[in-house]
């Protein structure tokens, strides 16, 4: 890793670690939620950004994780940290299974099917058949976990660090998944499935596994979100949750890992600012951002930053001599979402 990047990473880590010490409990809580959204958006990005399977229904997997955690904690008396791997496993299973019909649905049709999933989710959660588990319309209240004895942290600060740690682990996981052979396979499937199959990539296996991993990430985020908010109820998981994740994905940047963090911060912090104007304002802003980003910055904030970095680097004299040969886009990766000619 180049020293510049290592330094930047260290600075980000120290900054992220120090923030709860500087902010009050409420701001820390908001940041925790932003990190939770970042995890969920990272999951969506693996599926939609890297693999090109458009999902408008990831709120359903978020809800699955949230309810898994809530039910385990309140009915099973399980400690909160054990709910995360279980939520991940349940999410993986559900996503993997949903991945099978998704194999036959391409582009728009998958978007439609997942949209239907998102719209139907609150009704399924309210259903009286499941009410013994889900608490029906009332939802489930969870107690906020205490920080381990001996640590001078408030409960909110502790949850922030837990979430930060989970995010870090999942970021490294995603980075490992997406940088090597498997990542190239995912992008090849997105850009040209027929060519990918001709190269010997098992489309069905990769696509279903990707769906599973993506849903697992989002489920873990859901479980964390439930623990942080201490409450789950069907009406928190409407189609607008799925749209929120999509907004974060688009704003942060398609097919970029750090973009998920920008996306998470955006969807958590911007509505809080905008709600001072009107109750409807956050959504109006979301909508405007969705459309505007598609027109002018289809690679999101991170895409913009990356191209700025590259321009700066090209200008600095120390490196320009070494970089005479115009390298192809970094990592030899084609730009995401360039229209392909099939």
């Amino acid at each position: 890793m180049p020293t510049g990047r290592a330094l930047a990473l260290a600075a980000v880590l120290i900054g992220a670690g120090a923030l709860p010490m500087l902010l009050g409990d409420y701001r820390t809580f908001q940041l925790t939620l932003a990190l939770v959204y970042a995890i969920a958006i990272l999951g969506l990005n693996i599926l939609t950004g890297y693999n090109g399977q458009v999902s408008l229904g990831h709120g359903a997997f978020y809800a699955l994780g949230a309810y898994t955690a809530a039910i385990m904690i309140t009915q099973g008396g399980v400690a909160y940290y054990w709910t995360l791997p279980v939520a991940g496993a349940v999410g993986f299973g559900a996503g993997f299974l949903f991945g099978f019909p998704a194999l036959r649905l391409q582009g728009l049709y998958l978007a439609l099917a997942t949209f239907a999933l998102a719209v139907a989710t609150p009704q399924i959660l309210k259903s009286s058949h499941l009410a013994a588990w889900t608490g029906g319309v009332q939802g489930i209240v969870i107690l906020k976990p205490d920080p381990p004895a001996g640590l001078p942290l408030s409960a909110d600060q502790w949850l922030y660090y837990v979430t930060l740690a989970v995010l870090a682990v999942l970021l490294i996981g995603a980075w490992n998944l997406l940088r090597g052979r498997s990542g190239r396979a995912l992008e090849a499937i997105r850009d040209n499935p027929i060519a990918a199959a001709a190269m010997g990539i098992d489309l069905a296996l990769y696509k279903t596994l990707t769906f599973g991993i993506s849903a697992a990430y989002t489920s873990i985020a859901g479980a964390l979100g439930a623990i942080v908010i201490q409450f789950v109820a069907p009406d928190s998981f409407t189609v607008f949750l799925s749209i929120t994740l999509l907004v974060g994905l688009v704003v942060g940047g398609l097919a970029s890992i750090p973009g998920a963090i920008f996306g998470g911060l955006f969807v958590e912090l911007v509505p809080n600012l905008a709600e001072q104007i009107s109750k409807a304002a956050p959504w109006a802003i979301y909508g405007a951002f969705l459309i505007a980003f598609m027109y002018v910055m289809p690679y999101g904030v991170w895409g913009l930053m990356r191209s700025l970095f590259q321009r700066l680097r090209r200008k600095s004299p120390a490196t320009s001599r070494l970089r005479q040969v115009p390298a192809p886009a970094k990592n030899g990766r084609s730009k995401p979402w360039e229209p392909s000619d099939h």
Partner: protein
Amino acid sequence: MDLFLQQFLSGVAIGGVYALVALAVVMIYQASDHFNFAQGEMAMFSTYVAWWLIAAGWPYWAAFFATLAISFVGGVALERIVIRPVEQAPVLNQVVVFIGLLVIFNALAGWLFDYTIKPFPSPFPEQPLFGNRYIGSHELGVIALTLVLLVLVFAFLRLTPTGLAMRAAAENPTSARLVGIRVGWMLALGWGLAAAIGAVAGMMIAPIVFLEPNMMIGTLLYGFAGALLGGLDSPAGAVLGGILVGIAENLLGTYVVGPELKLTLALVLIVLVLLLRPNGLFGRRIVRHV
């Protein structure tokens, strides 16, 4: 038996509304291979326009036709201004723009008209016609209006030169352009018609479900299900599909799954149709060569 007949007929009536939404979906899909995820919210917003006109003292039918005109112009403008730049973009970009529109209309309605639930008048008499006890006048009116609209759309597409041009533009844009058809404007026309048809759907369902910014999301799902069931390139199929979905929703909701899982039915139906019969009942099979 009475219950069955009642549920069946009200299924046909509510299916009429779904049929209208499905018809609007098909108008746009046929012209440009898009699912307009914002169709429901556009219809909801049109209904608010009608509500506002009626509240300002307009008689119902004047407000009705004024709303149709406004929706038509709005639909054309949307296509020209918002959709055109992403016409050639990848699927995800298009979907994101549609979702953006959905969100904007939803927020605008909440902002301008606030989130309280409003009653919306029906143009049809309150007493059931001919003293029957199975179906209300509003329901009958919805069915009649749906059929009239279907005939109008069919006549427009089959019998008028503009309709022919629109079909040509959808079928083969390049050749259509070569013979002098302005393909871009044909798409815009499709959007305008879809917006107007959607407005009718909104004004017809609002007396049943009451007017509020989220009223069309479920209806849109049934509309999609109807359009898929009937076949995405067949207006008549879409209407029949919508009505079938309405009947299925009511009967299964009454006898099998209970009213609380009705939207799940739409989900299951959409996934099943997409998996088992992606061309729908009346759609043409599309073969793509590599």
